[in-house]
């Protein structure tokens, strides 16, 4: 914890040092950026854009998980599915996110649905790969144990498979969140009239670096909060049965 705090302070210090050397139009200092951020919040516009973006992040993440998790599990468990689908997962992963966004906006229209579809489909392959690799590690000997003890197929899925897959679902949720929010910003820049991505692009066009950094900082802080405070706690509670690993 102390180490984390120390490294954060070091980065802020380096930022401060660099901002003294460069003109403020290129790199405004931390203090100036924070001021702009606080002014934005005081203006009352921040929460509207932030909520729009968070909504898209959540919607996109939900779609990505809904598609990526089942496909990944099936690929991890079934060799036939693995052989049939692995090429397509690679293809889906290779297509740049910009292509998904453009296609979604053209085919579905410049609306919220298109944005969420673009975000969800772009990140689904990464989640699939994450789960596919993870599911390969699960202990299949436990399935035989359950069968010997007369467990039905459904009981095996629910009580032997699912608890083993859950850690990988949680991991891919955290990992997926990291991808999804980057894509969300891109999608907003391309075809939405609000959100953090829209703001970033707007201030970029006005060449207002302090604003660009302020919005970046805001969003990073929010995502860090979700990751460190919400997801890690949830994970700790869900996996209390695991031997504790201290790093």
């Amino acid at each position, binding site marked *: 914890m102390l180490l984390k705090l120390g490294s954060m302070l070091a980065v802020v210090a380096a930022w401060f040092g660099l901002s003294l050397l460069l003109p403020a139009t290129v790199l405004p200092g931390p203090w100036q950026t924070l001021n702009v951020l606080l002014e934005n919040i005081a203006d009352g516009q921040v929460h509207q854009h932030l909520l729009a973006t968070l909504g898209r992040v959540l919607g996109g993440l939900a779609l990505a998980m809904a598609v990526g998790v089942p496909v990944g599990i099936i690929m991890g468990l079934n060799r036939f599915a693995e052989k049939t689908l692995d090429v397509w997962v690679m293809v889906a992963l290779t297509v740049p996110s910009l292509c998904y966004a453009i296609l979604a906006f053209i085919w579905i229209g410049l609306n919220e649905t298109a944005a969420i579809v673009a975000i969800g489909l772009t990140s689904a392959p990464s989640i699939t790969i994450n789960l596919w690799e993870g599911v390969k590690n699960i202990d299949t*000997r*436990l399935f*035989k*144990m*359950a*069968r*010997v*003890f*007369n*467990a*039905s197929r459904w*009981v095996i899925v629910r*009580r*032997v498979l699912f*608890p083993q897959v859950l850690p990988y679902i949680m991991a891919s949720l955290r990992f997926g969140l990291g991808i999804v929010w980057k894509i969300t910003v891109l999608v907003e820049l391309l075809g939405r009239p609000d959100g953090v991505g829209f703001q970033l692009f707007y201030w970029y066009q006005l060449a207002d670096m302090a604003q660009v950094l302020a919005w970046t900082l805001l969003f990073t802080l929010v995502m860090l909060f979700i990751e460190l405070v919400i997801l890690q706690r949830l994970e700790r509670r869900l*996996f209390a*049965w*695991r*031997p504790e690993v201290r790093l």
Partner: protein
Amino acid sequence: MEADNGIRVEGLIKEFPGQRVLDGLNLTVGNGEFVCLLGPSGCGKSTLLNILSGLDSDYRGSVHFGGRPMVPGGKPPATIGYLFQEPRLLPWLSAERNVDFALENSRVPRSRWGDIKDRYFALTGLQPFRDYYPHELSGGMAQRLSLVRALAIEPDVLFMDEPFSGLDELTARRLRVDLLDIWRETGKTILFITHNSYEATFLGDRVVVLSQGGIHNQISVDVPRPRDYDDAALFQVGKTVSATFIEAAEAAERARARGTRSSH
């Protein structure tokens, strides 16, 4: 009348592509008898247990539990408790919940779960560890817990697939003695697979040595119980068993060598 929980296997044949693993095996295990199956690797021990426990229905021949025939593809007509080489516990469940998992899928009415668990947790000395998670248990304790799980469902027969081979010798010895105590108390029919001749001799009423998919030889262990590990008579029988086992392994090797030569 006492229920008959013997096992009768007749003319059991199991083939994998290009290989006959069980070749007309005949085997009977009497009601309440403790039979040890000894054999070199690849002699069909695990295949036999898979068939008997209903996991593998692709075989020829007949299997009876207490006179009731097993229908291929159906469940065995007897309740089976199983011990694997590893404990195979569900790591996210406490010791007690692991036993509950087996009970939930058994025919034991819920009203009796409490008594049954009390009994077997006490019998295995695990009473103080009911709330522990598997990773908090030692190897020997985890295997004891899997014994509790196997006994809790009130099995007609117990199948044990090299259950002590992953433990250090001291722990294994203790567990063998405890297993015999539990067997005396419960009178279960036990089929115990091992490749340790002295373990087989110490535990079994009878040691059946398998080789090339059939019975190579069988040896009755007529040493009175309770047995002592260092009993000279037991050691003598053990030596015979060991010699038979080596003989069976060599016969299997010769057969394999012939097989490879003729196929070239």
